[in-house]
């Protein structure tokens, strides 16, 4: 409840943030603070300096672009969940954002902070992986883009380079006529996802023309299930097809399955197909 001493630097622009990060060794970026401050309160994180990017105007806002939605890193979960353009183009993201934490957390936690924290029990990385989102980052060497699937590199680890700032998340619109769903097994205490399953289904002439399935909470990083997607591709999306696809997800789990006192790795693995099945079923029902 009482964080360690630190210094505070407020950035007025992305370039200033990058400069402040470079100048202050051991600095951490502070946006909404909903990943960092809880750790600081318990002294599990004691950054020597904080670079506050929370007032950088260019990082705010949600805009629709050609076939995509661009979401500023400072957009809060509540803003995303209630955004018309998000709901129209990427309803899966709106659904997941509305299930993060609780209302007060959603009011202050940001998409940038959330994905930069790379917590596998978080909701957004799972759906952003399913949606083939890409992350725009700015660092001393300029700007670059990282695919959602490549962003997290391990438990609480990302491809963000030293002194790089995540500025924007670009999410391609869900295909027209598709259906999507995010089904969450919420931890009763923390409200993090013990397991989250995301699915996007598109059909053409009664056959599945594209399928995207991602699972979070089981492995150190949210990941797509290639086996489930392969099983769905070209299928008739019947109950049997969904069953087969759901059953296939187990084959994609590696050796490093998460476990805690609430849910063992064996249980998480077993719940994978169950939650994927439910997400697929819901996504199918929402296809238009």
């Amino acid at each position: 409840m009482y964080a360690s001493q630190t210094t505070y630097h407020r950035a007025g622009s992305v370039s200033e943030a990058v400069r402040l990060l470079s100048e202050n060794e051991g600095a951490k970026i502070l946006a909404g603070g909903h990943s960092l401050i809880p750790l600081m309160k318990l002294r599990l994180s004691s950054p020597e300096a904080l670079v506050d990017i929370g007032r950088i105007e260019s990082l705010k806002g949600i805009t629709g672009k050609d076939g995509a939605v661009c979401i500023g890193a400072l957009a809060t979960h509540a803003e995303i969940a209630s955004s018309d353009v998000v709901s129209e183009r990427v309803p899966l993201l709106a659904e997941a954002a509305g299930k993060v934490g609780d209302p007060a957390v959603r009011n202050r936690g940001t998409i940038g902070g959330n994905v930069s924290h790379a917590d596998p029990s978080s909701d957004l990385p799972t759906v952003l992986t399913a949606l083939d989102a890409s992350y725009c980052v700015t660092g001393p060497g300029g700007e670059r883009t990282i695919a959602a699937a490549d962003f997290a590199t391990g438990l609480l680890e990302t491809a963000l380079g030293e002194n790089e700032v995540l500025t924007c998340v670009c999410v391609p619109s869900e295909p027209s006529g598709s259906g999507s769903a995010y089904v969450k097994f919420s931890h009763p205490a923390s409200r993090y996802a013990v397991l989250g399953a995301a699915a996007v289904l598109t059909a053409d002439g009664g056959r599945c023309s594209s399928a995207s399935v991602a699972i979070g909470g089981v492995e150190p990083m949210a990941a797509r299930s290639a086996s489930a997607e392969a099983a769905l591709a070209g299928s008739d999306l019947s109950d049997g097809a969904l069953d087969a696809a759901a059953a296939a997800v187990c084959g994609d789990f590696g050796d490093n399955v998460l476990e805690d006192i609430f849910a063992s790795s064996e249980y998480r693995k077993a719940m994978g197909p169950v939650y994927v099945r439910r997400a697929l079923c819901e996504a199918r029902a929402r296809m238009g």
Partner: protein
Amino acid sequence: MTMRVFGSGIRRREDPRLITGRASYTDDIKLQGMAHAAILRSPYAHARIRSVDTSGVEGQPGVLAVFTGEDTDGVLNGIPCAWLIPESDLKTPDHPAIAKDRVRYVGDAVAVVVAESRYEAEDALERIEVDYEPLEVVVSPREAAQDGAPQIHDDVPNNVAFTWALAGGDTDEAFSNADVTVGDTIMLQRLIANAMEPRSAIAQWVGPTGDLTLWSTSQNPHIARFLTSVVTGVPEHKVRVIAPEVGGGFGSKIPYYPDEAVTAFCSMKLGIPVKWTETRSEDYQITTQGRDHVEEVEMAATSDGKITGLRTTVYAGLGAYLSTASPGIPTILHGLMYSGPYDIPNISGTIYGVFNNGAPVDAYRGAGRPEATMLIERLVDLLAAKLDVDPVEVRRKNFIPAFEDGHDVATGITYDSGDYNATLDICLDAADYASLRARQADARKEGRHVGIGVGTYVEICGLGPSQVAGAVGFQGGLWESAIVRFHPTGKVNVMVGSSPHGQGEETTFAQIVAGEVGVDVDDVEVIHGDTDITPMGWGTYGSRTTAVSGAAVAVATRKIKEKSKALAAHLLEAAAEDIEYEGGRFFVRGSPDQHKTIQDIALMANVAWDMPEGMEPGLEASAFYDPPNFTYPFGAHLAVVEVDAQTGHVELQQYYAVDDCGVQINPMIVEGQVHGGVVQGAGPALWEGAVYDDDGQLLTGSMLDYALPRADLLPEIEVLSNTTPSPHHPLGVKGIGEAGTIASTAAVYNAVMDALRPLGVSGVDMPLTPEKVWRAINQSQNGG
């Protein structure tokens, strides 16, 4: 016509300050020149302390002092246990406020820093170097009692603090003659009370006068004063304990903790006020927890379902040290309740109180009775399953028939009054039990797993006659006192020694006064929580405040009424026997126009211009009420759940609570107590449980892992009641604070087992988390 006040659900008088943020809890208090303490706690569950090096703290910003066990040793006396149960070979090992040589649980205090701010005190804690030699750890109370288990206290062999036995009838005979027996091993996991207000203490020592004032989050400030005196050596009359607004307790604010003593020590050393407030993570480590029973239980019965015997062996974890009341919880408040609402002729139990390397265990809402109710109601359901009869029928067959004035049970206690069939009838009617069972059958045909569980109970509360308190080793009395003071304007102050902290007695006690002498409820102010201005009392716990303290208020007010009658007779120039009372007016029989209001009397008594010969001035009365017996509320609860067999998730869908707490002073408050109690009992059935690993590390160390019930996890609770007045209580009340918690764990647990029975699952340890339920289903389906 005035509204009937006693018995009506009026809004609470304490609420305006609470809903506007104007109430003052301990941590809200800021004294001039106050410093802040932070306590360094052992990261080991069991270790020898080789050395404590505080040199790194010196000269750190804001630091005023650092103290270790070396400093408090010989200055502070040990933290006492105050319930020394007789005939039990109880051992009471030393419990130093700050550990000097050895730590015995994660959280044991090792040093304290006092600084200008809490942030600075926390910074300094990180600079203290402690060299520990880790020792072997034992967590399970049953394992701790076995030969060869790590020894937590050198002078307590096998960690067994006490062995307490109970026997009524001939249980062995009952079991050897039984047609059927059922048995189980029930794990009642450790629970963390989670009063929303963390514990806090402010000590202010005034050296020149020798006065020590302690603001403390206590349920019983008078006991806290007594124990502060014992531990610090400051004479009792120079200690003032103030429990300001207290944010819930549920038993966890009964004990006298090392932290209060250490805070007082710091203030006495430095001569300035010192505040200590626990963080929530600290609370999880150090504040007393509840339950921690391993219960090996069995029941004997005839083939037609008549219970003939009950036998138990219970290992009750006590944690690393004895807390204030801990020995009494698994014995007096548990074993004596083994008959429940049933006529069971033969009952025996052996209870081992066992030290283990965890936070001390003490009273937690229900304290002993949920643990008893759980085992009885579990066995009754197992018996019903074995006999293949409806569990409701087994209950009916064994209920003690309705009685109004005393019924002896085999454990040796005498229930005051009861009508157990009545509450069950009301409950089953409200829930439409037959339809529920039909719905369940339909659901099963669809492959859905609906379960219905019943929990019936009798509890012991209104603690209690002081003579019994003495006989069972409670190192205090259990009476309560009240002063009722009428001011000249007819307004009233009531001072009580009990210390409500959310239960609403500022309202219900005002209703008692209003009901007795006809003043407006808003004209009565109830004062509590300050040992300098309230009369002696033993505190608020065990559902005793309304039952015992309320009785004292009623008796004192009746004395006021008698005096008022005599004064009215004098002023109206009539004989006292001709004075009648109605609705706040005293009048001459047959001439209601000739009257004096209670306000007239209050004025005349206070000015004392015209008093009858020999009558003292003033209108004030005090009463000391020592109850002639405990009270025994009872009830029947019913839960409906549905289990998702694929995931193991349990959804609590419906809940019915029917409680008989005797006469109700404020039904709205009664209902609120039931709501909260039910949820606190459902919590451990489904979500709550403190988990220590084999090294004694608390894995559920914060609200991130310890799952407290939240609004979205719960159904609406339907609350109904019946009224069987207590025959021995001046107002007929019994008590309601714990009832919900006592019944609901069993009701919810039984409902889940009812849902799982067709799947072949007969038992799962609580809490019934999805994984545990899923595993049980899998094992059963796979023939495991």
